[in-house]
């Protein structure tokens, strides 16, 4: 494994977004993974529609909550084509699903994987290198007050409640950490990112890990 790796440096990670007062983190993380997977495959990097996932992923609750696994299953089973955010922009509230013609361009997934990598964060790092940014669900109760630095205490692997995107890792310092993109705007944390200690399943970061294939 390299001592540090960050998909942002490959220019395949879109800008940090802000879910505002909408409980749609599960949609932001899934769409973020699809954006990066497509860019890694050579497609232009661009914001895809989170609102489409919020409105149309019928087994979820939109801004009232949802599951990354359900969203991935819906994307994969229905072979949904995610359209550009500019065509179906984020409104921070639930809306009626908008449908597009079959000929409309969009990005669909070929599949996804979902594993519990707890005790195997080295394998999780390999999965990050192999498949691209990883969707994870963490216990983010203590992230309310986070300003920066490496989260290594006060963050149990209790109840997973917030979905985010792991874009890299850095083991060069005294405390190795995951680089985690959040969806609370770029003024939160470290330019919208959090650093979470590697190797101890801090915040339950390795419990619920998914990757998309395009």
């Amino acid at each position, binding site marked *: 494994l390299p001592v540090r790796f960050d998909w942002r440096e490959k220019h395949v990670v879109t800008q940090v977004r802000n879910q505002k007062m909408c409980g749609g983190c599960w949609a932001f993380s899934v769409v973020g993974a699809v954006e990066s997977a497509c860019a890694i495959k050579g497609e232009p990097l661009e914001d895809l529609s989170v609102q489409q996932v919020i409105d149309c992923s019928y087994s979820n*609750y939109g801004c*009232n909550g949802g599951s990354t696994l359900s969203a991935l299953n819906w994307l994969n089973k229905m072979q949904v084509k995610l359209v550009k955010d500019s065509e179906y922009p984020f409104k921070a509230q639930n809306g009626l699903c908008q449908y597009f013609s079959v000929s409309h361009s969009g990005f669909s997934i070929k599949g996804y994987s979902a594993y519990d990598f707890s005790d195997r964060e080295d394998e999780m790092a390999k999965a990050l290198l192999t498949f691209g940014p990883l969707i994870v669900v963490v216990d983010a109760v203590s992230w309310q*007050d986070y300003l920066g630095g*490496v989260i290594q205490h006060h963050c149990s692997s209790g109840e*997973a409640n917030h979905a985010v995107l792991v874009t890299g890792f850095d083991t060069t310092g005294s405390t190795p950490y995951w680089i985690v993109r959040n969806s609370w705007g770029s003024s939160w944390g470290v330019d919208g990112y959090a650093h979470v200690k590697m190797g101890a399943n801090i915040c339950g970061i390795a419990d*619920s890990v998914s990757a998309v294939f395009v």
Partner: protein
Amino acid sequence: DGGRGRGAGPGATFSRTGPPSREREAAAFRESLNRHRYLNSLFPNENSTASYGINQFSYLFPEEFKAIYLRSKPSRFPRYPTDLQMSITNVS
């Protein structure tokens, strides 16, 4: 909820009735300051450890924050097979 007509979904434990009162926000802010002091006090000598303080969420009580922003439902994921070793293709 925008025509979805669905239930309030998972974890709907806090429903704000109207804009928060000044008193409520002030009380939440005071509680946040106390929490920051506690969180920053435990490992003061760890130079890389996280720091906690005032941000856009400091005017919310933890249960309000959780009810609005922490809405991802947990799922059970299969454990990554112990006998599986992923080989890394050269990442160009």
